[in-house]
């Protein structure tokens, strides 16, 4: 009798975790799983304007991907996106690390002031931040042109920052760096505070100078944090749809200003070519997952601990 009750109890505990997971799995399948599968299927079909009006979509195998591979426009967009992403992420990491080291070196009051400033910038909703920055770079009444004009010998002549791709992406990069540095600075600073003072003092007694202490003790200890933070920045800087969309609103609608996100949006909305848009989307997902793998592995390590 008692053996039977404990047997049912055991079975119930084994079933419990699966029951608890049902809602989460159901919503993930609905909101992400189905779209991913639809996208894979559609990327293998010819799915254009005619299919929007109910014409069945014929399977074309890898034709969309072949068309993409030979599409020079797309390669420019991919190249531009990767370049933008890598340059911006590295600059963010550099500035963030310097600010973290600065936080560790300055007086308590200065540190708190810097941290509050960074927190406020970090907290700004992207869309609100974009409107302010667009105004700061406004050609006629923007503060940036006004301040640059004050430098002797510099004549901005109401320079339009968003009119050509080079300065457009420079502005985009400045804004993204401004938004992302706080997270990097706080994460690396948290890593720095883990380095024990005793070890540093011992090294100092043994005659290590400031640079040596940084290079041989601090740097190796914060290397894992830097790796993770850089990886997250690379992934996040690929998804700058909001920023580029808002800057294009204020500047030019031309395709020369597109990055991957806005390019897919154009394909899907203006060109109504869902087959191609899906194929590019799959490319975006593949790049992201490839980049994420290392990050996911490090989180799993923590889960196992």
């Amino acid at each position, binding site marked *: 009798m008692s053996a039977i009750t404990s047997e049912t109890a055991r079975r119930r505990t084994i079933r419990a*975790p699966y029951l*608890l997971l049902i*809602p*989460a799995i159901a*919503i993930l399948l609905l*909101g*992400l799983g189905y*779209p*991913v599968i*639809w996208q894979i299927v*559609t990327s293998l079909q010819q799915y254009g304007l005619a299919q929007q009006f109910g014409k069945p979509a014929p399977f074309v195998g890898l034709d969309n991907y072949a068309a993409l591979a030979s599409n020079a426009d797309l390669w420019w967009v991919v190249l531009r996106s990767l370049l933008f992403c890598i340059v911006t992420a590295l600059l963010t990491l550099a500035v963030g690390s310097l600010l973290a080291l*600065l936080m560790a070196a*300055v007086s308590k*009051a*200065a540190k708190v*002031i810097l941290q*509050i*400033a960074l*927190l*406020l*910038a*970090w*907290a700004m*909703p*992207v*869309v*609100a931040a974009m*409107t*302010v920055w667009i*105004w*700061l770079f406004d050609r006629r*009444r923007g503060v940036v042109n006004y301040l640059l004009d004050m430098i002797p010998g510099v004549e901005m002549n109401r320079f339009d920052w968003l009119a050509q791709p080079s300065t457009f992406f420079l502005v985009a990069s400045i804004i993204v760096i401004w938004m992302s540095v706080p997270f990097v600075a*706080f994460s690396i600073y*948290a890593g720095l505070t*883990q380095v024990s003072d005793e070890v540093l003092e011992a090294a100092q007694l043994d005659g290590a100078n400031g640079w040596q202490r940084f290079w041989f003790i601090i740097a190796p200890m914060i290397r894992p*944090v830097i790796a993770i*933070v850089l990886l*997250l920045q690379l*992934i996040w800087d*690929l998804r700058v*749809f909001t920023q580029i*969309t808002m800057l294009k*609103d*204020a500047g030019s609608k031309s395709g020369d200003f597109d990055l*991957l*996100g806005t390019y*897919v*949006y154009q394909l*899907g909305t203006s060109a109504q070519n869902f087959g191609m848009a899906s194929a590019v*989307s*799959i490319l975006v*997902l593949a790049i992201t*997952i490839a980049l*994420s793998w290392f990050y*996911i592995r*490090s*989180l*799993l390590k*923590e*889960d196992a601990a």
Partner: protein
Amino acid sequence: MRKALLSTLAIVIALIWVFPVYWMVSSSFIPTIQLQSFIPTFFPAPATISNYVGTLADGSFVSALGMSLAITLTVVFFCIIFAFLAAVAISRFRFRGRTSFVIAVLVVQMLPAEGLFIAQYKMVSSVGLLDSVIGVSVIYIAAVVPFTIWMLRGFVAGVPADLEEAAMVDGLSRFGAFMRITFPLLAPGLVASGVYAFLQAWNEFTVALVLLPSESAHTLPLWLRGFVQASATRETDWGQVMAASTLVAVPVIIFFLIVQGRLTSGLVSGAVKG
């Protein structure tokens, strides 16, 4: 001496960094005529609320606020429940498929909206839920639940199972022990994940742009963008745009300051702990 110099540098950098935020709030209180001058006004000396009055005049803000609130509250409510149940499953039980589930959660949380919105648009429009709270909420919950599970998992694991077992020895059922002992200890974690879900849903732009095409269904970020676009056709009324931006940003900044610490440690804890 060196410390004083570096401290000054830190304060200068702080001022540069906070300037855009200051500029938004400050300009929102400056009269339009003064903003149209080619010489910037750096301090709202005669402050005015006329920009706010102008911004709120046509009622579109209230409509967008209502939409944002409806979506955000739906997302927070379901997200917390779903994530809590899943977090209990993965941190209190060892079962077949657990590792696969954890990996799946970590992978899907990285999926960018930029790589999915075309398919999500087709899915939601095919069931006639464009411009509705339900359609966009389903996508948001799916996007936010993975990281919320990950965040809560740490909190659930932080409550020792011994406490629960002690309560069960004292005669409570497993469920009773959980509700009386573990649940109250989890409150800070639930609040933190709720605020995280709130921020994500409140600020989201990409998916909303695709799934909420009608102006009457716009959320606050879309409203703000539309506001900028509308004022771009004539001379941009930056005073009103800044007032609108301030209205959108203030609740977010307040909530953000509450959860900031947890967000940083949640994202990089694996690295810090080694």
